């Protein structure tokens, strides 16, 4: 890939500001399309440097309870791939700069048609993809088509990715590398940050790509500690839990939900600002 993407530009900009990136995750359509769009639009101003937008899936095998429930809420309220791409288009109408990465599982993409999906996603204003269950061994499925249309394909490296395997993981990765802080699922165990940073340094020895760290990151303090040694920190489940905490008993969103999520993001953003 030769063209500079919004993700590349954002990391360059942050480098000049001498700070790390706050990367935030929410699930598209959680709890409803309208409230989810309101949250999405508020993220850049609240201090999110890069946005991960989850494509809900019925069987989110790599996710803990918080994001599982977010997926269920979104699907129950009628979210689907077409609406998720529509949401990105709406977001892009007012937000030209903040990178947006779609994150999820392969089956809804495969069912949509991988080639059509990458081109529709690019057209909607998506900058990158994180698809958990497509390893480098299956690059031709999605990674190569994504690269061809100019989308970054962001791969996960994990504590089980040893030095021997790392080059394969890095090979077609672009935008940034997502380092998974723990062996496990999202939003459950807290990472041992000194361990994580050792691994980040080890991996950074083999790549110039920015490395962001996610899984189990929930506080501004952790964001600060992580971005002391990594280019970015990803917060997901903690944000999704804030959405869950602001639902009525019947699952409908409480008044002011989006504002409270925005407040949480602002607080987290302090972790990447002095």
């Amino acid at each position: 890939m030769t063209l500079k993407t919004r993700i590349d530009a954002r990391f360059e900009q942050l480098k000049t500001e001498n700070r790390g990136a706050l990367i935030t995750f929410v699930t598209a359509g959680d709890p409803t399309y309208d409230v989810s769009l309101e949250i999405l639009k508020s993220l850049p101003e609240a201090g999110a440097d890069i946005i991960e937008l989850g494509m809900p899936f019925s069987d989110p095998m790599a996710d803990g309870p918080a994001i599982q429930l977010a997926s269920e809420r979104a699907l129950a309220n009628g979210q689907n791939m077409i609406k998720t791409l529509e949401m990105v288009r709406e977001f892009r109408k007012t937000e030209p700069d903040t990178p947006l990465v779609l994150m999820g599982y392969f089956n809804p993409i495969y069912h949509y048609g991988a080639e059509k999906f990458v081109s529709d996603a690019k057209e909607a204003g998506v900058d990158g993809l994180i698809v958990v269950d497509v390893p480098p061994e299956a690059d031709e499925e999605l990674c190569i088509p994504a690269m061809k249309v100019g989308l970054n394909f962001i791969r996960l490296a994990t504590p089980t990715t040893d030095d021997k395997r790392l080059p394969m993981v890095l090979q077609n990765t672009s935008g940034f590398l997502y380092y998974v802080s723990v062996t496990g699922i999202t939003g459950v165990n807290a990472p041992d940050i000194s361990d994580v940073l050792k691994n980040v340094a080890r991996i950074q020895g083999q790549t110039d790509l920015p490395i962001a760290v996610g899984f189990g990151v929930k506080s501004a303090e952790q964001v600060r500690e992580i971005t002391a040694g990594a280019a970015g920190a990803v917060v997901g489940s903690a944000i999704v839990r804030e959405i869950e905490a602001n639902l009525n008993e019947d699952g409908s969103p409480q008044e002011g939900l989006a504002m409270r999520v925005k407040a949480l993001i602002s607080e987290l953003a302090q972790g990447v600002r002095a």
Partner: protein
Amino acid sequence: MTQVDNIANSLMNGPDDKGHFGLFGGRFVAETLMPLILDLEKSYDEAKADPEFQKELDYLLKYYAGRPSVLYHAERLTEHLGGAKIYFKRDELNHTGSHKINNCLGQILLAKRMGKTRIIAETGAGQHGVAVATVAARFNLPCTVFMGAMDVERQSPNVFRMKMLGAEIRPVTAGRGTLKDAMNEALRDWVTNVDDTFYIIGTAAGPHPYPQLVRDFQSVIGREVREQMMEAEGRLPDSLVACIGGGSNAIGLFHPFLDDKDIDIYGVEAAGRGLDGPDHAASLNGGQPGVLHGNRTYLLQDDDGQILEGHSISAGLDYPGIGPEHSWLKDIGRVNYVSATDKEALDGFQMCSKYEGIIPALEPSHALGFVKKLAPTLPKDHLLVMNLCGRGDKDVFAVAEHLGMNI
């Protein structure tokens, strides 16, 4: 007769080195699991080449599981249906009451060989869970079985058996609390406990090498049938029938016969309340190719690629996917995939009990439901083998309820 004359190579060679059966199979898992799966593949290849491994497995299959299971001429059923000569492969006579033990013995030996100290598994009806708990007890390894909360309620006798065998049961409430959710949860556990844990998958699905190794361990069924039929009739059978959920008993029976082009092969899916509605578990007849649980295969899914729940009277068949080798065998036309409804399975259940004095599990009752239709259309010298892959003790409460009887 199925036409496979245009396929030059053996149909028994799959999968390729990346785990593909044609379009299907593969390894669609999170990066955390990739190194583990590659390690498993390597260990399995080594084990296959080690005569000691096979020797130990053979010993356990014979003296612990009770193999070979007999090939039995179902004389009264043959007479009743008035067509093909029907044989049952009696895999319900194995220790633990189903074919599941064949695979579990193979996998636990692999776990031991790899130095793993903890076993996990998913289960639907509980037959696989019981077989896993059994081998874990036998080899003194702690065992956790993930089971949908709904299935825990529906299958209480098997839950109790597993507990007696020392397994910990984790009821899964995520999703809708059925087999596919139990498999999700087992994968979540595995990704969290990567160092010490071996995941014994129960069906011929999942990421490569699972579909292959489960098939290999189950193929003992078909290999025995070849020998036993030669002994009984002096020739190979004319047709094979087995029920299909994920497809492990079926692939075990079918695989050693795939290159015998004159043999008709039938896999019987669960048609639930009928294929014209949403309440069935027939992934091949009512699904589309997709990616779930580490492999590409036919799946029950909606227009957005969200996975649907399967329905069947049998908790062992209500999985929305199918082993990838079956998906391939469907597409190349080597195996005929048919279906039987809940009602046809209940009929098969009663027919087998009444005419043969064998109470079958609800899973092979689907195969029986199809045999009831097929056998009368065939000549008397046609040799039909059906895999009676499980016994029905676990199902008597469910069947009584469906028949409106109080027990």
